[in-house]
């Protein structure tokens, strides 16, 4: 059987294509490496989900090799299995969108023209996007309606233009501590923004509303309120989903992909033929699959005549910080409000989406504020050391855990700024290292640009000011070049120049007539926000392009 469309990967990059094209009457098949789960499978079991990482592959079976470039230029090799260094996210139908927090910010118009607006940066491969914000805006709006985005649109210094005045779903309920936050921001002259969320506050779109379970980020949603690709799209379309299907090679002639080869759950090799193929296996794995698909037509790897596949891998730069609110400084009423479980925090700052320092204009970013994750085991293990840095046990540990966890609560922040693309950060293939399928694993070559850290620190200091103004204790921040594995993009950047990019402006491979890549791989720069909304929006945009192509 020959399908109209075959999609590799069922996350935020692939699902809008499956949803749009199957609902338009096309015959669509989705190949997903992970298993299928339903909402009844999604308990809040910290042991299974967070400690034993139920939704990601075992590193002994599937790993990456990581080459980390130090400040002095030396490179250290890490075997992901030996060092427990995982770049896997959600390996399941719907992918990592099941586990996202759903902090949804649109990219700003200047994010699409980073080079034009901010100029060249030495050592960084900054370019403008092949499309503008205006071209993507209708699809951001579509995501709001179809996937479901809740919140309040508030005008602020860096508000992006919108085609609609408000979000289609009202804001989630928030903790009373947001009032302290808002007041502190006002005192400091900062503009507090209510964070839009891909979470439905009430039942809508055929899904249940949020249950305020207190376990949202990192956990799959048991009500369907979270706008995962599974809940919002795949369960509302007729696309055929083949689970536990690991695609290991794309086969082509000189101009078209002809079939994909995959291993089924019994490790038997199977093939699928289709008119159009869409790759959305998440950035690192999409590059890996292309590079592993060498042939006489594409000796450097599929769609890689430019040599650009795998290049300019980016993550979200930044880091995090926190401050603690202790009972001894609060009234009884404030204590009760602080400890109210389940209610969200949902506050962000974007005052410094760009800023000037030393007569130079920098692209800044976003700061999201949220309560420390409710995971109680993780929080207890953070109490193992005393103030002198010595490990403690017995009664001393018991008392410390009780005091910290029952008479205080931590407010954290996360900084999102651009991870500048460089020549040293890319995906390659580690030929001699094989996974359980016998396929060469991906090598992740890591390097951060110094400006990433400077901008991250600038933003984090602003967040620290807010926490201090709020009266938080033990305020700290940590900005590092560590790549967040769940915020990865690039490797197949799109552009109009076929010699310098892998994909054209439609996210179709320059080299092939029927191969599209629609996960975050296409992004030449990442903006200073979490990626998921942009991935969804772009995938809906490409779905329209593919639809036209199939109809014609």
């Amino acid at each position, binding site marked *: 059987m020959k399908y109209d469309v075959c999609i590799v990967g069922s996350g935020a990059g692939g699902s809008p294509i499956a949803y749009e094209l199957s609902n338009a009457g096309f015959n669509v098949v989705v190949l997903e490496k992970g298993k299928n789960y339903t909402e009844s499978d999604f308990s*809040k*079991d910290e042991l299974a989900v967070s400690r*034993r990482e139920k939704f990601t592959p075992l590193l002994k079976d599937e790993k990456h090799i990581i080459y980390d470039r130090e400040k002095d230029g030396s490179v250290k090799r890490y075997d992901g299995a030996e060092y427990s260094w995982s770049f896997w996210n959600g390996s399941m139908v719907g992918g990592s969108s099941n586990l996202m927090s759903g902090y949804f910010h649109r990219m700003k118009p200047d994010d699409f023209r980073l080079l034009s607006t901010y100029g060249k940066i030495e050592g960084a491969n900054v370019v403008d996007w092949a499309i503008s914000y205006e071209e993507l805006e209708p699809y951001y709006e579509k995501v709001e309606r179809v996937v479901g985005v809740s919140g309040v649109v508030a005008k602020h210094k860096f508000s992006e233009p919108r085609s609609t005045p408000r979000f289609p779903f009202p804001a989630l309920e928030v903790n009373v501590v947001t009032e302290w936050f808002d007041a502190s921001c006002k005192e400091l002259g900062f503009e507090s923004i209510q964070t839009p969320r891909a979470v439905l506050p009430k039942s809508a779109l055929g899904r249940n509303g949020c*249950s305020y379970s207190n376990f949202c980020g990192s956990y799959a949603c*048991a009500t369907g309120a979270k706008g995962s690709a599974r809940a919002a799209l795949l369960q509302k379309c007729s696309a055929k989903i083949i689970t536990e299907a690991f695609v290991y090679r794309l086969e082509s002639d000189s101009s078209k992909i002809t079939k994909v080869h995959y291993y089924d759950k019994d490790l038997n090799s199977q093939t699928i033929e289709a008119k159009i193929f869409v790759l959305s296996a998440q950035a690192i794995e999409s590059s890996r699959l292309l590079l592993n698909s060498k042939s006489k037509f594409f000796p450097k790897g599929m769609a890689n005549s430019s040599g650009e596949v795998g290049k300019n891998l980016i993550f979200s730069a930044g880091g995090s910080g926190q401050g603690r609110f202790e009972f001894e400084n609060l009234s009884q009423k404030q204590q009760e409000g602080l400890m109210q479980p389940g209610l969200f925090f949902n506050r962000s700052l974007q005052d410094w989406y760009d800023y000037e320092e030393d007569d130079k204009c920098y692209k800044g970013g976003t700061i999201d504020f949220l309560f420390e994750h409710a995971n109680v085991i993780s929080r207890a293990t953070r109490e193992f050391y005393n103030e002198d840095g010595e*490990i403690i*046990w017995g009664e001393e540990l018991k008392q410390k855990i009780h005091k910290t966890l029952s008479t205080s609560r931590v407010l954290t922040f996360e900084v999102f700024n651009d991870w500048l693309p460089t020549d040293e950060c890319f995906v390659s293939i580690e030929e001699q290292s094989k996974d359980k399928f016998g396929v060469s694993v991906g090598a992740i070559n890591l390097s951060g640009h110094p400006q990433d850290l400077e901008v991250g620190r600038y933003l984090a200091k602003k967040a620290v000011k807010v926490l201090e103004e709020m009266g938080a204790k033990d305020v700290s921040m940590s900005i590092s070049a560590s790549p967040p594995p769940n915020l990865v993009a690039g490797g197949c950047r799109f552009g109009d120049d076929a010699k310098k990019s892998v994909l054209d402006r439609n996210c179709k491979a320059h080299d092939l007539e029927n191969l599209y890549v629609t996960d975050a791989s296409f992004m030449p720069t990442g903006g200073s926000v979490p990626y998921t909304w942009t991935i969804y929006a772009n995938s809906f945009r490409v779905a329209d392009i593919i639809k036209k192509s199939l109809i014609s």
Partner: protein
Amino acid sequence: MSSNSRRTFLKASFLSTVVVVMGAYDIFDKIKPSPSLNLVQKDLFPFAQELNVNMPQYMSIILAHSRISETDKEFILNGVKWLNEEAVAMYEKLYTKLTSNERQSVLKNIVQESWGESWISTLLTYTMEAIFSDKIYGVNPQEKAHKWLAFDMGLPRPTKALL
């Protein structure tokens, strides 16, 4: 072999391993790991007993767990060996033969070594997992630690343990 019998096999293989404890010049003794492991966990966090948490059973689960690496399991057993060798070096006795004060002295000594600090942290981490585990795992029937911290467990609760 069914998955259950495979688990039983692994569990048996780890906990039936004989640990060779070296003295200064020769083999001091050959021991089963469980008595030392159970005792050191009582010494590290005796409150777990007050919470009616079955730590030996939880460690059996960990040592047979499909998602705990063999390296991590071996580290737990190697720690038992090294703990006893420290006890022998200090008191010429196995850890299980020492008084409570002597055992605390051994723990204070091993924590000065990087392996010792890491091992104690590992055992404490598994203790936290056990005391805050859902009762579906079978080691924490009363879930007293949650009440101790007035912590509301997330809903929905698991209906099946991940082993």
